[in-house]
């Protein structure tokens, strides 16, 4: 009998292991319950579930972007603001999974592990969330994308403070009015294709000439006499097995690095990429985070892509000007480009952006915002030189260093127009990236969007 007792210890150990497992599970539940709840398939919070008494979402000035009034969820009373901030704020549904109202629904509705998601409405404590975005700036960018051209354009525009990380403007088109969400059917599905995707965070685009920022950084770091060099551009030249040409074969003549940047000369930058070789190009792209995904308030940005071929000079050249092809095709994400520009503006160190300014209670802690995360993308010296050769614009009284891009995408679509850069004024330290799809020259399509937003943002001078 004693032996039986002693041997049964084995089964006792199993039981103790089970109790330990329950303890482990409880710990996991305590730490992760909030994340586990905020899932698009969670029927407790889908539809307008739980929004009847949810907390408000406000912009940086305290303007309500979404709030619950008499059991109804109402959005900004300005329709353009509603549309402009759709992807940032979200709507009643959980379709836009990266929006604040989707990813922090449990917080807004007063979820707590103690009461779960079915606390009677009269007994909930909900949280308000204050965003860093400025409704007016977003509205300006959105208006330009929607009405500034011959037809409403698809695209994205993001502006953020490269000192604090605050996102001032974040707009993605196409969108819709969250107060009146569309029924998507066969007729309109082409227009609404990808409407639930926030292009700022979740899309990648061919960069075209804005990628020359990366190529220039590689050249500055690796070629000692880069500023003494000049090149001759005939508009078209055979590099490797095929031609590389400038936009519409425009010849730029004899030019130096700064002029090549200004005229966005493909020949010069393709030659630089070939001279540097795939190894150094890949290394610089890696260093500047081109192949990285950034975690921004619990959302991972779409990964960019850069890979230079080792044995094809022509394709290597094309990757150096932001095109490439096939498996060597360049891709970048708008938020990522803004982050890269912020590194150029800020001595090589980029601050991770955030959309969340605060709220009532311990919202920041509950969300777990990593306010001080930074990336060292460039040496301070290189960053300064890259900034110096970027063309300078004067926008709304601000000194703006920026690079245009016009990326060929084929498929009978117009090029992606880009405008990325930063404000050099220390009292309004903003980095930005704007992209317009199926458009034309960066200077004709993307620049007006950025200008509209920056001009509105200029009124924030000194207040950021």
């Amino acid at each position: 009998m004693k032996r039986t007792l002693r041997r049964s210890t084995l089964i006792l150990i199993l039981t103790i292991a089970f109790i330990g497992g329950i303890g482990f599970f409880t710990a996991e539940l305590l730490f992760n319950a909030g994340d586990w709840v905020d899932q698009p398939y969670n029927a407790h919070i889908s539809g307008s579930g739980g929004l009847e008494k949810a907390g408000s979402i406000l912009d940086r000035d305290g303007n309500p972007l979404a709030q619950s009034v008499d059991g109804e969820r109402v959005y900004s009373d300005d329709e353009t603001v509603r549309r402009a901030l759709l992807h940032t704020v979200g709507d009643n549904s959980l379709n836009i999974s990266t929006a604040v109202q989707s990813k922090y629904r449990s917080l807004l509705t007063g979820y707590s592990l103690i009461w779960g998601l079915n606390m009677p409405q009269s007994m909930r404590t909900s949280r308000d969330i204050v965003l860093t975005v400025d409704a007016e700036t977003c509205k300006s960018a959105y208006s330009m994308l929607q009405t500034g051209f011959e037809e409403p354009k698809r695209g994205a525009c993001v502006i953020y403070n490269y000192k604090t990380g605050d996102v001032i403007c974040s707009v993605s088109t196409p969108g819709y009015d969250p107060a009146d969400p569309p029924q998507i059917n066969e007729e309109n599905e082409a227009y609404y294709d990808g409407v639930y995707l926030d292009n700022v965070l979740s899309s990648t685009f061919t960069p075209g000439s804005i990628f020359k920022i990366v190529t220039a950084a590689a050249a500055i770091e690796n070629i000692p006499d880069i500023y003494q060099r000049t090149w001759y551009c005939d508009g078209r030249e055979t590099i490797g097995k095929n031609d590389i040409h400038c936009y519409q074969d425009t010849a730029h003549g004899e030019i130096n690095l700064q002029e090549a940047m200004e005229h966005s000369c493909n020949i010069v930058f393709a030659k630089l990429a070939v001279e540097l070789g795939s190894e150094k190009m890949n290394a610089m792209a890696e260093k500047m985070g081109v192949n990285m995904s950034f975690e921004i308030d619990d959302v991972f940005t779409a990964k960019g892509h850069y890979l230079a071929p080792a044995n094809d000079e022509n394709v290597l050249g094309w990757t150096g000007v932001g095109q490439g092809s096939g498996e060597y095709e360049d891709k970048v994400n708008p938020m990522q480009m803004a982050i890269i520009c912020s590194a150029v503006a800020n001595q090589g160190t980029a601050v991770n952006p955030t959309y969340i300014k605060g709220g009532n209670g311990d919202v920041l802690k509950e969300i777990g915002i990593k306010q001080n995360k930074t990336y060292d993308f460039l040496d301070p010296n290189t960053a300064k030189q890259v900034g110096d050769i970027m063309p300078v614009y004067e926008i709304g009284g601000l000194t703006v260093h920026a690079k245009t891009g016009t990326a060929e995408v084929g498929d009978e679509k117009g090029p992606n127009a880009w405008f990325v850069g930063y404000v050099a004024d220390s009292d309004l330290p903003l980095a930005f990236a704007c992209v317009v799809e199926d458009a034309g020259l960066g200077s004709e399509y993307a620049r007006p969007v950025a200008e509209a937003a920056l001009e509105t943002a200029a009124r924030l001078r000194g207040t950021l």
Partner: protein
Amino acid sequence: MDMSVIFDAGVVGLRIIMPLLAIVIVYQCYAAMRRRRRPEKPLVSLYNPNSGGMIPVVFWENSIGRSKSSDIVINDLSVSRNHCVLLRRNAGWFISDVGSLSGTFVNGVRIHGRAQVLIDDIITVGKTEYQLKRGDDFNSPLRASRFFSKVSDKPAIQAWKLMFMITMFHLFMAVEAMFWNDGGNVYAPMILFGALAVVEWGFFSVSYFALRRVNFELESLGLFLTGIGVLLLVRQVERSAYVQLIAAALGIVLYCVIIKFIEDPDRSDKIRIPMMIIAVLMLASSIVLGRVTNGAANWVYIGSISFQPSEFVKTIFIFTGAGALDRLQTKRNLIEFIIFSVVCVGLLALMSDFGTALIFFVTFLLVAFMRSGDIKTIILPVGAVAGAFALLRFVADRFNFIADRFNYVFNRFKAYRHVWDYANEAAGYQQVRVLTYIASGGLFGVGLGNGYFKQYFASESDLVFALLAEEMGVIVAIVAALSVALLMIYARAITTRSRSTFYSISACCAAGLLVVQLSLNVFGATDILPLTGVTFPFISSGGSSLISCWGLLAFIKAADERTYSIKR
């Protein structure tokens, strides 16, 4: 004051009361198990006329030998390490030689097999002589085990009071289900509750008045969990709730039958082989007659009734594994049982019922170890199975025709601890939803019938832990899980007070089987273990499973010496 606030407060109040009540119920069940025992006194004693020493005999079966782990240790070189077994049966005391070198003698006559010994008989073991005396002749106090430190004649709680609390808990569940009515019959939960209460109190009355048993804690615990399982179904598939209740009644009948059937601990030895053959035939019938349901061919359909033979084989498996102490010591080799186990696990694997196969395998290890005490009996089979699995995986990677069959298993391994990366693929789909809805329920749950997890496949069976946690709160879910796990603590505590090692081994293994099954259910669903596909004991929907749980509970009840020896 706004009426809705008062109403809401009532709902919240009810939700808070239920987990507390669940904790009290489970605590009381276990507190009651510790009480009302016979005091720690020797049953008989052995008097050594040469030395004048007196040895208390405290167990129903006592091994005697030179080995330090014997119940009665004799330091005499002429005594074998395992010499003989002194055991008590209804007919009195017996001594059984278990293959000693020098033999065992009663009143000077060498015995073969079991021989009865009477008070004052002289037992000779090696060169040592003992005279069998009454227990009262030994008068030093004995140390009580910790579990039974509070032994007294008074019950911790009157059995009917415990049953009343359980009934109240089930009533509250029914009230909640009435309140969260999503279009069904408002009174359906109350009707079901009424039927459940009839079964519960009917069983209680039979045990109390007809069988005159003194204790009802183990049954109370089973009824508590069974009732939760039945009521969980009322707002999901009402018809299943009644099927479950009928299964509960059948399970209770099986429970009583098994207790009666194993009343004689020596019977198992005589009918072991026939029982094994029946078990194998039952499993084989699922292969021949079985229909593939959800990937595993473990269901047999007879007319409109379907059942899983593998569930019933579990009880036979436990039954054939255990044995009385003298039989265990004479017949050391496990070959019969090993062949039986290999056939069972093999048949289950053929049915692709890997969850049950794993439970059988672990139970086999437990039985083998309980019988032999040799750690090799664990290491060797585990090594063999791990090797086979690795080989299978290697082969599966190369030849797709095998991969198909085991794909699901391998997929789960791939997603293990990374389920969020597979949220919308088969490999992680269930687990992430389980976690989401457990978290959605909070500590107190969203209310019976008010959850959404019930819409998912297998939410009432393999994933019932999440259904329970979402609707009743994670406290109730964990209390329910722990109450099953604690059966093992209880089974172990009564080990040495069983009437035979047959009971103590079978009780420990039955409890172990339930714990293993529980672990696979709870941890598989929550991604703490990479396996799913088994039921939560007593709570998961599934008639065969519920009946087999009651069958296993019978072994634990039988191990309690009061079951057979004390009447009210």
